[in-house]
């Protein structure tokens, strides 16, 4: 989105270039190309167009005194003629409506075959476009082997090459681009729940005993499905809200936690939830436990999101997509697990063969993770 390169102190290449210029301008022979770069930001357009001085001269005769040398002041003096020609050579429409696009400044740049006029462009579409059409017609009538190398930042980066046979491109980037972005983060979020074994395990620990009730030190089947469903909904909603909060906060850098300790605490939540199934520590208001632990897990998701990178332009959309993806993944798991658990809740094997051993296993696994994360151990082959 930034087209202008930083204006650094004169580089070595710069100085070398100056040295070259004093002796003889380097001008290699290659077919004619121009380099056009555009960025769409909302309704406004910004860009840069580099055109070989040689091509401009071929079209517009820049050598005002006719002495066979083109000087910077001659190029500057031809600026308005150059700009008029460029304005005619480039047409942009956004969703079918004409956008303005005008050259407004000219400098020089050096490409592999010599010096180019580097012209900055600015323009405006009537409204933020969803699709952009660019027509290019520069030099083709003189040199059909000319090519316009086009780079467009519009949602993503698009590139194409203008030729006489293909002098128009249409790029859909705005809303559809955002849609694609949203879907991508949604998918990443959902996938993370499946692939992130620790989060999955924590969720299962919460769900395992949800179809049971604890009375006088024994598990009994929950009497009503609606009650069980309601309990689970409360837990998952609280967990989701909490992790959405902390995930957002961490992604925006409002909350900065060392990731190793976050990961260790996530492992700790698994141990706690699993032991809680075996010997009750917290029985009432499990949703509060879900909320508190959700905060921790959300901070853990943030590290995944940072690995994906967050687009500055569509930060909110990406965060929303990722959160909804995580939540959708959880709901899918709960929806697949709960009916089975509910049907099996009266069976003794479910209580003794699933809930208890499952929780023991989860507690052990959580403990291993906890220790390896706290002490930063590498347990090769384990995970």
């Amino acid at each position, binding site marked *: 989105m930034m*087209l*202008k*390169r*930083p*204006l650094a102190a004169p*580089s070595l290449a*710069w100085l070398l270039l100056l040295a070259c*210029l004093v002796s*003889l*301008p*380097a*001008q*290699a*022979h*290659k*077919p*004619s*190309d121009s*380099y056009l*770069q555009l960025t769409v930001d909302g309704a406004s357009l910004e860009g840069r167009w*580099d055109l070989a*001085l*040689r091509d401009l*001269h071929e079209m517009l005769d820049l*050598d005002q005194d*006719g*002495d*066979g*040398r*083109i*000087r*910077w002041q001659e*190029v500057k003096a031809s600026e308005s003629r150059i700009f008029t020609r460029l304005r005619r050579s480039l047409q942009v429409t956004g969703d079918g409506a004409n956008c303005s696009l005008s050259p407004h400044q000219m*400098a*020089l*740049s*050096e*490409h*592999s*075959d010599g*010096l180019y006029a*580097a012209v900055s462009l600015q323009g405006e579409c009537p409204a933020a476009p969803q699709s952009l059409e660019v027509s290019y017609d520069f030099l*083709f*009538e*003189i*040199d*059909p*082997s*000319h*090519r316009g*190398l086009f*780079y467009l930042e519009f949602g993503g*980066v698009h*590139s194409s*090459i203008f030729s006489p046979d293909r002098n128009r491109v249409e790029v859909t980037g705005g809303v559809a681009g955002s849609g694609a972005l949203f879907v991508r983060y949604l998918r990443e979020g959902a996938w993370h729940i499946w692939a992130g074994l620790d989060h999955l395990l924590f969720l299962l620990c919460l769900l395992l005993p949800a179809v049971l009730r604890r009375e006088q030190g024994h598990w009994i089947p929950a009497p009503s499905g609606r009650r069980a469903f309601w309990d689970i909904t409360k837990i998952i909603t609280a967990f989701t809200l909490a992790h959405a909060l902390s995930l957002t906060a961490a992604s925006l850098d409002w909350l900065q936690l060392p990731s190793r300790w976050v990961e260790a605490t996530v492992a700790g939540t698994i141990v706690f939830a699993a032991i809680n199934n075996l010997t009750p520590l917290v029985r009432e208001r499990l949703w509060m436990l879900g909320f508190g632990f959700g905060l921790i897990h959300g901070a853990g998701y943030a590290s995944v999101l*940072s*690995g*994906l*990178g*967050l687009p500055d332009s569509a930060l909110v959309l990406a965060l929303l997509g990722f959160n909804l993806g995580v939540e959708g993944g959880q709901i899918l798991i709960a929806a697949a697990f709960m009916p089975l658990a509910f049907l099996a809740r009266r069976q003794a094997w479910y209580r003794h063969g699933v809930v208890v051993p499952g929780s023991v296993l989860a507690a052990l696994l959580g403990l291993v993770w906890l220790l390896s994360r706290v002490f930063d151990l590498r347990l090769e082959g384990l995970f």
Partner: protein
Amino acid sequence: MFFHHVRPLLLCAPLLLATAFPSLASTMPETFVPKDPEQTLLKVNPRDDAAWQSLREDRQTLLEQPDDLSLALDLARRAIEQGRRQDDPRFFGYAEGALSHWWDMNEPPLQVRVLRATIFQYRHRFDAAMRDLDTVIERDPNHAQARLTRAIIHTVQARYQAALEDCARLSRLGLRITALTCSATPASLTGSAGRAFELLSQIPQQGVDDNTLVWALTVRAEIAERLGRADTEDQYRQALKVASERPDRYLANAFADWLLDQGRPDEVLTLLADFADSDGSLLRLALAQKQRLDQGLEAASAPLEEHKSELRARFAAERERGGAVHHREAAMFQLHLENAPGEALWMARDNFRNQREPLDARILLESALAAEAPGQALPAVRWMRGHGVTDVRLEPLVARIEASAVTDPAMATDGDRP
């Protein structure tokens, strides 16, 4: 892209973007404004250059009357001649532009076809060129220019019998010297190098136009070089002398190759000083600087690196526009200057499918040896043995390839497989 771990760094967003999108960055070098407005940025033809001025005016006339065939042909011919002399593809673009009214026609006038074929030939699009030339010759078997152009493409693509037939037709049309020079290369590559050299030596130095004479002398010098004759240098110098009025890039590059083989890089620097604008010459200048560096001259290191980075940029620019990089030069660059025999071999093989001149065979043999994949050079070995090519530069390479035949299983089967 760990953007949010490095948020403070976002202050340098342009820099980050440059790393994130290398292609974007590479297309947009830094901009600057010259401090001195009087500074010369570009040398062009001065206005009193009559030839350039009339070219411009004629082009303007043609833009207003795009179907003026005789003006278009005249303009295209002049542009092609300029482009050839300067080895500058832009002029071939202007030639195409002059013919644009007829360019995409299925049945353009024959003269347009011939020029279109010439432009395709320059761009190494030999198939497209052959289609046009076949049509022209089918309708007008005595079209000398079409015959000559087709003979040259046949020669480049190693169809020597077909080339000789086209050349023979030129002789029947009374173009004796052109015909003789035309057939010298295919004859010399099919076992008659000595005879071809003798015939070329009988061409009188007087009464022949300079262009034809330079061409004949260049071909003779090349044959002398392939024969390993002691007078090769004299042959080249004789050609250069006739060409002194109008320096010939092809000839200069060929002589430069010979000088490099002799380990005389200093002379290459003077020979090609004015030609650094074309890739082929710049490559040889770089090879010369490398030889000087290898001979212990530290001062050669800076110009060598400069040439290398310029060549790299030119090959990259060509790829970026979707054009066909001339694989022979690119392969030579990869093998001799980038020390990348694998890459070189890939390009040399690809190149050898399209063109089979001795230099194309040489780079294929050399890169196959360097990449320790002698089997990959089989197409070049077959070409050499099959046609009876005489070339003292290639003999030792082929011998080394054949000696490693025992160890490379590819030699036993089909080396032509990709």
